[in-house]
């Protein structure tokens, strides 16, 4: 008896769910961009800008101040939607897959190619033509073109450092204490002599730490020597030649691993480095760290010094390079979820042309979060510091044209001129402007990602022996189909070069 009823109930539920589903699909909003396209009166609109960063107490105040400017210029208000960096990957996917209104979103790197492939971003070329004169003026055409996928631009790079070089930072006080000379250091293998002295005299110090929680010791060196073509799976070791090779099979990679392994065995690297979330900055701040290998750019040393509160000596290992990846790593795009892409573009253009707006989001409100100490140089107001400021985001590289903003007192005042020079003098990869579409090989990439997660961190922190594990790593990558991925990348690159 009970069974019969329950079957009936089940059947009813199935039917009902089908009916409900039928209703569900019809109410999708389709009318996009109906207001704002016409040149006359602009209807009021709220622009939602989504980005990641640490929490800021006065964020709403900043948005209100920004809105005053945008209200006047494009009759729109601004809403700043901040997301915790740790939750960014999941949250941003959910926001774009859900029907939430997002008018501008920070994108870049792997996120960008995925969002383009899945149709989550709007092609911007026409909109830039219409409303984006400020954007066009801010860039060298070559740089602006770097984000093109199949001839169309889906996001605008932020104007910041486009190049980077490998940089070793070491605590000056310790170098002085043991009278160490760093002027003769040319390669990472020259670091051993320094590390040895520090390790012997300061046994409790973690001599070399990671640049960020998720980055291995080798990570920053790889990124600043090769064109990693987006994802390390197939790289250009020679920037002048369009020849994609397997990074993990190169002798340079093996050498680097041997060096790091040696450091690990000597005790320069923390034994838990592969699983630990602690960075070199954490160590140095806590007075138990000494050095870090990071990406260099103008101002990098001073900015790190600010974070660790101690003087740092720096060594540049090689000169700066520019690749598509370094330009497109941080961009702003307009998602298909935007209800008014025209207005979003007008706002985006202001972020590249209106210094007041840029300064607001980069540094906060004058008098409250900063005061001017020179023509274009600023500092904390009296009584305010990094620990109690209501807005100390310091993510100028994320919002439009950073070169329009003030420079902080601890940086050189002409930082942006230096930055511009640094960018122009960088060695440019032959594949600059090429963005790779991973979708045709996504099955292989899924397997490869698992393999790299298994080996790369262990190898690149020296925790496991490259002698034994590098060949295993390479074999596992082959089994997962890396050769097919590299062939696909080469094919896309050749096609791109032909149509360039």
């Amino acid at each position, binding site marked *: 008896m009970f069974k019969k009823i329950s079957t009936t109930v089940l059947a009813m539920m199935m039917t*009902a769910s089908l009916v409900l589903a039928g209703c569900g699909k019809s109410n999708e909003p389709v009318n996009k961009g109906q207001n704002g396209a016409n040149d006359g009166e602009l209807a009021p609109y709220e622009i939602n800008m989504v980005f990641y960063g640490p929490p800021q107490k006065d964020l709403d105040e900043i948005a209100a101040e920004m809105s005053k400017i945008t209200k006047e210029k494009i009759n729109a208000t601004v809403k700043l939607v901040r997301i915790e960096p740790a939750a960014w990957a999941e949250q941003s996917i959910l926001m774009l897959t859900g029907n939430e209104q997002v008018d501008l979103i920070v994108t870049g790197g792997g996120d960008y190619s995925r969002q383009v492939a899945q149709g989550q971003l709007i092609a911007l070329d026409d909109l830039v033509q219409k409303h984006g004169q400020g954007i066009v003026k801010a860039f060298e055409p070559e740089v602006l073109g770097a984000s093109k996928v199949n001839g169309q631009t889906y996001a605008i790079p932020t104007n910041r450092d486009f190049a980077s070089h490998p940089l070793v930072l070491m605590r000056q006080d310790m170098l002085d204490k043991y009278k160490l000379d760093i002027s003769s250091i040319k390669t990472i293998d020259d670091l051993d002599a320094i590390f040895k002295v520090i390790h012997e005299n300061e046994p409790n110090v973690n001599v070399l730490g990671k640049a960020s929680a998720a980055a291995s010791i080798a990570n920053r060196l790889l990124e600043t020597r090769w064109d990693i073509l987006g994802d390390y799976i197939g790289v250009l070791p020679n920037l002048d030649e369009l020849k994609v090779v397997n990074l993990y099979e190169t002798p340079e990679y093996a050498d680097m691993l041997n060096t790091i392994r040696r450091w690990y065995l000597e005790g320069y690297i923390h034994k838990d480095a592969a699983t630990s979330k602690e960075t070199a900055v954490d160590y140095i701040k806590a007075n138990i760290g000494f050095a870090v290998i990071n990406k260099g750019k103008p101002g990098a040393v001073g900015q790190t010094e600010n974070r660790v509160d101690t003087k740092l000596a720096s060594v540049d290992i090689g000169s700066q390079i520019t690749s598509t990846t370094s330009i497109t790593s941080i961009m702003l795009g307009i998602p298909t979820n935007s209800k008014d892409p025209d207005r979003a573009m007008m706002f985006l253009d202001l972020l590249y042309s209106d210094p007041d707006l840029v300064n607001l989001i980069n540094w906060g409100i004058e008098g409250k979060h900063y005061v001017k100490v020179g023509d274009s140089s600023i500092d904390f107001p009296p009584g305010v510091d990094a620990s109690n400021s209501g807005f100390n985001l310091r993510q100028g590289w994320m919002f439009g044209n950073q070169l329009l903003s003030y420079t902080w007192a601890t940086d050189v005042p002409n930082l942006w001129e230096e930055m511009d020079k640094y960018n122009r003098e960088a060695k440019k990869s032959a594949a600059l402007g090429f963005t790779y579409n991973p979708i045709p090989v996504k099955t292989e990439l899924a397997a490869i990602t698992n393999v790299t997660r298994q080996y790369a961190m262990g190898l690149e922190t020296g925790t496991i022996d490259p002698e034994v594990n590098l060949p295993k790593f390479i074999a596992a990558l082959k089994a997962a189909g890396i050769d097919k991925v590299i062939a696909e990348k080469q094919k896309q690159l050749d096609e791109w070069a032909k149509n360039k």
Partner: protein
Amino acid sequence: MKAMANGSTLKRAMKYKMLYIMLIPGIVYLLINNYVPMLGMIIAFKDINFAKGILGSDWVGFKNFEYLFKTADAYIITRNTILYNVVFIVVNLVVAVALAILLNEMKNRFMSRFYQSIVLLPHLISSVIIGYLVFSLLSAETGLMNKTILPWLGIDPIMWYNEPGFWPYILTFVKIWSTAGYLCIIYFAAVVGIDQEYYEAATLDGANKFQQILKITIPLITPVIVIMTLMQIGRIFYSDFGLFYQVTLDSGVLLPTTNVIDTYVYRSLLRNGDIGMSSAAGLYQSIVGFIIILISNYAVKKINPDNSLF
């Protein structure tokens, strides 16, 4: 049941109509929460493009499933997932029933309550915190094992997060520690519900404690054991993501013994965030779980029809 006429079904339905009305909120909840989202299954067969929408995207057949079976890892993750779960179910069952019986034998009511809370406590701790509790034991440079226990025993320090061989034991221990208490409470409730007269009769016949447990307690709580076990078997192809990802601190070297289907899918899709592929994994897990539960229920029914779920 067939003999029952349609009319009398209706009559009975009328008789219990208040009960059916009370059922409605539950059914609506189920519909909205469990049945409507099932339509999302079609995502597993589509090449999702957000510009075209879910229904407008192209069908791709089983292409989204390919990555699950493509590599040599497919065998390892399937083996790990199922073996770990089998071990967890069996060991959990033994430990939880034993704990429940022990708790029942405790005559001091206050102490009994106290121990119930103690065994339940780990269940309430998030796996991230458990991960760091384990780390404080196993950390290479500062962990209790390497700093204190191993030197005391005269054993060289072990790089725990680099040695896949130890992890099946570590993970089983951690899993039992964190979930046995919860199951134990359910079994304890069943044990408490047993009529004391059985035990009195057994005592009169001269049965000792051990015999009472074996002949009275266990047979009488068997239905609960079967239901609980079947419910766990239904999820045998799902793994405790927190346990396998957080507790191992996502250490890549451990993957040969700690990679399970959920962590594999998570790691695979970290980079490309393809919802078609993740839906494919979810659908695959549900179908395997569904089949396994049908088979095990069928088996239980063959042995003892009263104990089966449906």
